[in-house]
């Protein structure tokens, strides 16, 4: 059983509170990704789970053991680092065997397990080489082999793919997901890349400023972001945001600001009337060619499967729309647009909390 429970975890570095009270229940066998901007506390949290950093207060439980102050080596973890941290002076074999040697495993067992892990990661031909002689991808897999050879219950990963080039990164993503399926361990993964989080996670926890902003499955986070921050963090291109207020009108609730009036969905709570809000709408929910609003195209980015149209309207407010690739817009074209009311998100202007 490798369920991880974090309770009221706080970490202070002198006067600076890096982690401000995190409560998290990580299920056995799930692939959980902690995502957030640099400096948000996600790595510190991971380090507390691993034992490299002791928490200022709070507790950490792995399985049924309270590991809060336990030695990292005793927690039964495997960890992957951003810079891989392979031992440059040892062969690949010795690198992978290290965790077993430390625990005085008999030599024959070491050989067997190292070879098994090497097979699983397809690095058997590299066993007698040094890390310096391996390519980026090969080194990654050596690091992985080293992590899994000790059969940990929990795998911690600290931005392991950040230093890879784009193509390798995507390949490794698939490989990691496959590994997770085969090994059935609990994966706790940290990244600042939202695309990585979306593609790999069973559940995502979004951390900002030392606190959890939202916890949920990827699609849920994408479709119903709990705060403005989460909404803006996920999705490429970033969600469009407009400031204004909600007004009650005959046809139903309305979002207005100086430049635009957007009819809102009927499910919008009536209590919002008169409130200052931020309206968020994703680029794929901005429909062009219909509606009463008009704007002028500034830039087009053809992606192949869609095109991004950057346009301006009103008093130089900029928006992005994701449109069919066959629609050929040019700079300075005029277009009409409207928002899909069912997919408009409303957030409180000050707190950023979701309102609808």
């Amino acid at each position, binding site marked *: 059983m490798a369920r991880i429970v974090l309770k009221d975890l706080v970490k202070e*570095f002198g006067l600076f509170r890096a982690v401000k009270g995190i409560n998290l229940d990580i299920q056995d066998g799930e692939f959980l990704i902690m995502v957030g901007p*640099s400096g948000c506390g996600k790595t510190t949290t991971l*380090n507390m789970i691993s034992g*490299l*950093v*002791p928490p200022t207060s709070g507790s950490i439980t792995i399985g049924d*053991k*309270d*590991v809060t*102050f*336990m*030695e990292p080596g*005793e927690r039964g973890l495997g960890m992957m680092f951003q810079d891989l941290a392979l031992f440059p002076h040892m062969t690949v074999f010795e690198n992978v065997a290290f965790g077993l040697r430390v625990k005085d495993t008999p030599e024959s067992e070491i050989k067997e397990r190292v070879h098994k892990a090497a097979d699983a990661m397809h690095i058997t031909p590299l066993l007698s080489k040094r890390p310096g002689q391996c390519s980026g991808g090969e080194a990654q897999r050596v690091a992985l082999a080293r992590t899994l050879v000790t059969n940990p219950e929990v795998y911690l990963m600290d931005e392991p793919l*950040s230093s890879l080039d784009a193509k390798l990164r995507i390949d490794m993503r698939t490989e990691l997901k496959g590994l997770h399926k085969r090994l059935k361990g609990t994966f706790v993964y940290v990244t600042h890349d939202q695309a990585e989080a979306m593609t790999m996670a069973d559940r995502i926890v979004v951390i900002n400023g030392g606190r959890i902003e939202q916890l949920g499955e990827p699609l849920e986070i994408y479709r119903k972001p709990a705060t403005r921050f989460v909404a803006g963090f996920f999705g490429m291109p970033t969600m469009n945001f407009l400031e204004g207020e909600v007004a009650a009108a005959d046809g139903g609730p309305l979002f207005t600001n100086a430049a635009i009036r957007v009819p809102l969905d009927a499910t919008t709570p009536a209590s919002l009337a008169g409130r200052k809000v931020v309206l968020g709408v994703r680029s794929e929910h901005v429909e062009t060619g219909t509606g009463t609003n008009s704007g002028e195209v500034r830039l087009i980015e053809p992606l192949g499967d869609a095109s991004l149209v950057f346009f301006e309207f009103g008093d130089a407010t900029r928006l992005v729309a994701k449109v069919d690739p066959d629609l050929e817009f040019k700079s300075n074209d005029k277009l009409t647009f409207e928002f899909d009311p069912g997919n408009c998100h409303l957030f409180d202007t000050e707190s950023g909390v979701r309102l609808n």
Partner: protein
Amino acid sequence: MTDATLNGTGGPARQGPRMRLRAWLGQERVFRWIPFVLVEGVFLLVIIIPFLLTIYISFLRWRANRPFEQAYLSGFRNYEQVLTNEGFWLSLGRTFYFAGAAVTFELIVGFLLAMAVHRVVRGRRIYITLFLIPMMLVPVVAGYNFSMIYLDSGPLNQLLSPITTALGFDPRIRWLSDPTAAQLAIIFADIWQWTSLTFLIFLSGFSALPPQLINAARIMGANRRQIFFWVELPLLKPAIVIAIVIRSMEALKMFDPIVMLTFGGPGTSTQTIAHYLWEQVWMFNKFSFGAAASVLVLIMFSVLIFTGIWLLIRQSDQVENQQLNTGSDR
């Protein structure tokens, strides 16, 4: 880049996992403090305590030929004597003169050498190996070598003889018997040996110049001179500062060549402060005088030392900041 935050802060004693942690922490403390205590202990024992004792002695009136027990306190008398002693001030001034002259020359020549070696393609290895040798020579041996060369019937005079005889002088110049000539001889001995060091520092400075910046300047049309003065020289500033600080500090301690070549002579014309102090204690046995003089010299040099260290710290901070901006996250 430190591990400072990633170590146990300790918790209240408890069974099980926390006990193991304490065992680990016990080791951590070992690593943290024992080396520090040992090293500081060595410094304390061997350097600081003697020095404190010296301060005490500097307030005594004591000559070495009388046993220690007979010494008695005499206040600032020794300091007065030192401060009014002509020899003290003269040798101090001379020290700065020697150091100044030698270091200036070493900086310039070392810089030019490094620049030349950096730009040359063939024979770099040989040049570098050769140029570094003087620095590795035992200074005493170097001093001795020069004593042979400076002989009136030595090779230097022989080499200069075409010029000297043409000018009507006796080519057998007695370098070490004439005050000015002796001073020049000492300065040159220092230059010969320590230009290697400035050369080394500047060479590593030149090697660290990022080629991208220079290429960028070339593409923008800068000519050689402009690139040198506007791009390379500013980038070499750390090296220059380091060379000046390190070399100046060392030059002020000049001692070995003087003992081997001139022993302070003729007269006292080549006596540096180090030699002067040494003479007072070793030759004349004026212990408390020497003690007071040492204290004074240390105070004076401390100002220089602190300035030097401050400059070095500032330099490495600046370089660190520059590195941070060349973008790696965290």
